[in-house]
């Protein structure tokens, strides 16, 4: 859903603030795109409405898409159906409708309960609106709620972060995504930092906050399962895990990415172009086939993000390479540096390794 009420200061995703009038037409195009796929033999395990801001458009649009998916594919009984939402746009009416459509997981873009931080991030909501939205969601019967939080935001204190985690825990949210702010090119925040109006958080402070958070989250029963993701047992996001495990997924909509038939391909980022219609077959033909070496790289960069790391048997099945043999020297070095561990036929990054995961990935990826 490439629509937002306002562009956040740190966001470089595709989103439009002045095109809400095209939402119905957009919905038609998404459904048309969906219908072009061959559904034979597939059932859908997870659905994720991402953005933009899916909660910013009329709930009926979400319903139409969801029922189209239901018509086209068999939706698994226990399918995880997530909707990303923004605290400002959540109303009790919408929440009730979402429930009735079968949406069973909400991901709320809270980012912080500190009004100063929210202002710097350019969010439209304040802390109280965020609190109310979580309460309403719970009241409407949502049990599986994720809250997005950010840290390493200019002027953010460690206390502001630990307070946010405390609040999430006391609300009883089941899942927390905790992202270190990335200053993306072309964003307002990046420009503010580049021109000196804001001071970027240094790496030491960033890691200080991260490790404090890791400790707190653990104490409160949120188990880390990925670099930035923490959940009460059983509440890990199945949808995101599918990305990291390189399962197949179909991305529908403007700027959506897909991994299907061992090909990676994506849709146009231009809304008007998308509204003119999508030719899935042509799109797939233009995609990139993932060869063995590329698959090896993907596993390294995706699976190592997860605490459970790489399944070595699956690695050799998917790529034809024996990771331990191929990278023996480097693995020994990384182990001696305390960055990776090996056990139960899995290779995974340590806490220390996850701090410098790009380095670990690059060291291993040079063999492929």
């Amino acid at each position: 859903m490439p629509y937002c009420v306002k562009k956040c200061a740190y966001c470089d995703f595709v989103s439009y603030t002045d095109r809400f009038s095209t939402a119905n037409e957009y919905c038609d195009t998404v459904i048309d795109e969906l219908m072009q796929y061959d559904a034979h033999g597939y059932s859908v395990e997870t659905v994720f409405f991402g953005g933009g801001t899916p909660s910013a458009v009329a709930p009926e649009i979400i319903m139409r898409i969801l029922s189209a998916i239901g018509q086209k594919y068999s939706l698994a009984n226990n399918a995880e159906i997530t909707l990303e939402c923004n605290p400002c746009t959540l109303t009790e009416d919408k929440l009730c409708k979402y429930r009735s459509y079968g949406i069973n997981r909400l991901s709320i873009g809270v980012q912080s309960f500190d009004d100063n931080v929210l202002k710097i991030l350019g969010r439209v909501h304040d802390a109280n609106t965020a609190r109310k939205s979580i309460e309403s969601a719970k009241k409407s019967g949502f049990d599986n709620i994720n809250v997005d939080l950010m840290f390493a935001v200019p002027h953010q204190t460690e206390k502001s972060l630990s307070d946010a985690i405390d609040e999430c825990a006391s609300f009883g949210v089941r899942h927390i995504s905790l992202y270190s702010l990335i200053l993306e090119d072309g964003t307002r925040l990046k420009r503010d930092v580049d021109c000196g109006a804001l001071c970027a958080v240094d790496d030491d402070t960033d890691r200080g906050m991260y490790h404090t958070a890791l400790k707190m989250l653990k104490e409160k029963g949120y188990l880390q399962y990925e670099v930035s993701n923490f959940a009460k047992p059983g509440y890990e996001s199945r949808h995101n895990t599918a990305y990291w495990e390189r399962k197949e997924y179909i991305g529908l909509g403007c700027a959506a990415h897909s991994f299907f038939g061992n090909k990676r391909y994506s849709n146009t980022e231009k809304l008007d172009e998308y509204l003119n219609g999508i030719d899935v077959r042509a799109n797939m033909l233009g995609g990139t086939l993932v060869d063995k070496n590329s698959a090896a790289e993907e596993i390294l960069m995706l699976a190592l993000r997860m605490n459970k790391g790489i399944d070595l048997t699956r690695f050799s099945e998917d790529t034809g390479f024996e990771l331990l043999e191929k990278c023996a020297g480097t693995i020994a070095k990384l182990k001696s540096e305390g960055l990776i561990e090996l056990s139960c036929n899995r290779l995974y990054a340590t806490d220390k390794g996850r701090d410098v995961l790009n380095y670990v990935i690059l060291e291993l990826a040079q063999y492929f």
Partner: protein
Amino acid sequence: MPVGCNENVRNFCIIAHIDHGKSTLADRLLERTGLIAKRDMVDQILDSMDLEREKGITIKSQAVRLNYKARNGKDYILNLIDTPGHVDFTYEVSRSLAACEGALLVVDASQGIEAQTLANAYLAIENNLEIVPVINKVDLPSAEPERVRTEIEDVIGLDASMAPLISAKTGLNIDEVLECIVNYIPAPSGDENAPLRALIFDSFYDAYKGAIAYVRIKDGSVQVGDNIIMMSNGHSFEVTEIGYFEPTMTPCNVLKAGDVGYICASIKNVKDTTVGDTITKQSNKAKEPLPGYREVQPMVFAGFYPADGSNYDALRDALEKLKLNDAALTFEAETSTALGFGFRCGFLGLLHMDIIQERIDREFNLDIVTTSPSVIYKVKLTNGNEIELSNPTNMPDASEIEYMEEPIVAANIMTPNEFVGPIMELCQDRRGQYVDMEYMEENRVILKYILPLNEIIYDFFDILKSRTKGYASLDYELHGYQRADLVKLDILLNGDIIDAFSMIIHKDKSYSKGRFVAQKLKEVIPQQMFEIPIQAAIGNKVIARETIRALRKDVLAKCYGGDITRKKKLLEKQKEGKKKMRQFGTVEVPAEAFMAVLKFE
């Protein structure tokens, strides 16, 4: 077209400040005389190397023959000789000029006379050329052709009353230029019956025909089957083909006094077709060679190493191929503990080095690492011996050195007098000795300085240009050696000397340079899992220190909603970068670090 009919031949070149439209005018002349159809035109056809087109400079000179029917009804042969345009190649320019009787002096109608215009005009006057001013770019709104016409007369002292007002871009008045060439540039003189004397003003290597000399026949004539002699070294060859460029090679029967063309004689080595040399005939030898020959001496040396060590043989092939076309390039194998196997190469100057480096990159697709450029020092040892030194690694221990000498140059810097202050400051900063200042006219001067060569090889020319808004021009020649207090500056990473960073430098400059290099390396060497000390040292004395802190955070917080292509592209880029890393002990150094430390200021 009759060949060698002197009355109807004109030999000329085009001289101009950079960007004043020299190459565009050449294109237009080629087009107007029907040599190149408009549809076949690549912009700036004489600058055939991509590099030349991009840098807007001419590196290798070329010559083309144009056929022109003048308004007086007669047919003329116009030989256009292109000239290189940089201080590294001043000698080549002077030889090209020596092959002509006249020059078109192109001046931009809005910029007016600039440094190079003047330097080149004087060079042309020294060579007794008839100069025809041409005022270009008159189609631009900012053009002031009449002001520029007066300027040419006042500053250079040329009669500019007949100067055509043209636009090389649109083709306006190109015929006037052709008429001026015919009417104002004298026909070549020279005795067709005298012994052959042919001036080599350029050469290139052809895989089938061998080294080919571009020549201007000053006296006599040459034809296929003649036995010729290179007067500088006495080597003799049998002529297999002669001809001219139209602009491709067009064979002919004879080249006579006054003609411009080429000679092939199965010459295997481009060294036998040295620019400035005179060709004569075995059977009827000329008594004296033409004046002005100079042996080409590389003045700047640097190590070239393949960024990927497995490309050593490919780099040698590349250097060998480039050398076929470039008599000034020298190289020999050397090894570095830091960089492995590579070559010590000699160049005319830093631009020459840049060009070779870029050609290796573009034409052979090889990434290379270069070490700090050096000049040749003379080292007097305490045991009485003297050695020559162009590689800092070979510098003997300070205790074995009696004294050292460095090469110096006599430099002439021409400038409008308002820039005298900044230039003197620059020369002083570069350890220059002031010699003299002469007024050429009311507001232009020549500053004469003796400067150490190693102070001007890096960036002197660039800084001179920037401090004088491009108005100053520089010319220099070697002026022997003089004693200097020189030291070897070493750079240590994690406690180990990295020989490829070592440089010989004046003691007074060693501290600031050491600090600069340490800081620069701190910027370009990526953080690693451990702390890396960087030290600059003279002998055992550390004079500067920086520390690269250990890597604390390098992780992407988010993989963007199923879009893993972004991260994948980044990884591919990092892998490419990693391939170009050099491993020194446990420290990895990117190839660009070696270039980064060269650029001082």
